[in-house]
């Protein structure tokens, strides 16, 4: 790639890095294709996915979970709620953009109202006044936008760090993480990194209890997460009304 047109905007450099990482990822994916009699048609990349899953689990156990647990113990609930609201408010703006791209008028209006009210009356998003006013969230990301316009989900992919995804959503991820994430526009690098870290830890802390339940309920955590994630994404693309899949024949009752 020539240097003509190269800029010093941190977002542009970040974008290029993410693209390179994606290319490397594709190479690794091809190496991890599943063959053999137990290959699942929904999950052709199962060997690759399982190893990524193990990697993410190990990283989580070693680093993320302890830090998130500490954060939860040390921080009062009110403060944590404020932090959560602040980051969700930022996401609502990107949801608005995607609602517009999907030509969903009502969702666009809701998301815009949420962002405006929470940013002003809600003190930069720390207070979630819009939910008090019964304006519901309608999260939309770029993957859902692609889905709405007919791009199929593609095979299940587990990304390092980011976790469960699909091929379509992996392609959409760079867009969500650069254009869609206002935190990347923050010029001050230490501040930006602090924001990213706090958001990561807060997200993880919100899931601690649910993670325990998941351990108890799932026979095989990998499979459970995969099926739940795929079902969930399909549901999200269709906003809660996915078309019926052909039901498998019921075994005869005995």
């Amino acid at each position, binding site marked *: 790639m020539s240097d003509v047109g190269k800029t010093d905007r941190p977002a542009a450099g970040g974008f290029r890095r993410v693209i390179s990482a994606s290319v490397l990822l594709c190479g690794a994916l091809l190496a991890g294709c599943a063959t053999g009699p137990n290959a699942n048609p929904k999950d052709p990349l199962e060997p690759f996915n399982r190893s990524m899953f193990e990697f993410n689990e190990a990283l989580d156990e070693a680093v993320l979970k302890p830090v998130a647990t500490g954060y939860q113990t040390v921080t009062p609930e009110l403060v944590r709620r404020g932090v959560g609201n602040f980051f969700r408010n930022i996401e609502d703006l990107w949801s608005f953009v995607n609602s517009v791209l999907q030509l969903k008028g009502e969702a666009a209006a809701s998301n815009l109202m949420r962002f405006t009210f929470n940013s002003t009356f809600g003190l930069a998003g720390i207070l979630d006044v819009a939910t008090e006013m019964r304006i519901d969230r309608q*999260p939309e990301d770029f993957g859902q936008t692609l889905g709405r316009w007919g791009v199929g989900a593609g095979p299940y992919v587990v990304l390092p760090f980011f976790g469960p995804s699909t091929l379509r959503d992996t392609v959409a991820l760079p867009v969500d993480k650069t254009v869609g994430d206002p935190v990347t526009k923050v010029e001050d690098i230490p501040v930006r990194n602090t924001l990213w870290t706090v958001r990561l830890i807060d997200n*993880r802390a919100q899931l601690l209890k649910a993670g325990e339940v998941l351990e108890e309920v799932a*026979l095989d955590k990998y499979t459970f997460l995969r099926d*739940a994630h795929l079902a*969930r*994404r399909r*549901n999200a693309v269709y906003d*809660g009304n996915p078309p019926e899949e052909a039901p498998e024949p019921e075994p*005869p009752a*005995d």
Partner: protein
Amino acid sequence: MQRRFLNRLLAAWVCSAAALAVWPALAAADEAPDAMVKRLSTEVLDTIRADKAIQAGDMNRIMTLVDAKIMPNVNFQRMTASAVGPGWRQATPEQKKRLQEEFKTLLVRTYAGALQQVTDQTIVLKPMRAAPEDKEVVVRTEVRGRGDPIQLDYRLEKTPGEGLGWKIYNLNVLGVWLVETYRSQFAQEINTKGIDGLIVTLSERNKANAKKG
């Protein structure tokens, strides 16, 4: 987006348990399935909120409640058969009985854990698209409380003369149908270890969960 889903999955177990409760049937005529779901969910949520022992985390009490009030409204045999899949046909009656027991213990345990989290949730019914003569319906509800509303759907089959006239055979939390999810998990176990292997896995998991308290 998966992060928030997991968190709300937890809160939604609560209200899924709530909807599966049974109460003495007073009326002779069968209720419409959506009205039944709404009524049961609300009544059970109220009971849980009022019961101090449950709020304090008495696990045995919760499991007794779930066992006594919830199971009669669920066609659990159909759920287990559906989750086990084609292997069900080949299973012996003894194996079928064990599968049902272990699957039930697994789910009851999870519901019990989630029931402790009930504080201020309410159930909102969504419009039901079904003809009056349908034998199987989907009832769609939403759990509203703190945070985002949680989607909770039920598949019910008509059971005239039995119980309240309708029985639940599948549950959808946040867009994920329970039976289908367990079907993959069970299929994996059956393919590698057979039906007996699945029973062993389930019972070991139940013992491990029981030890955790």
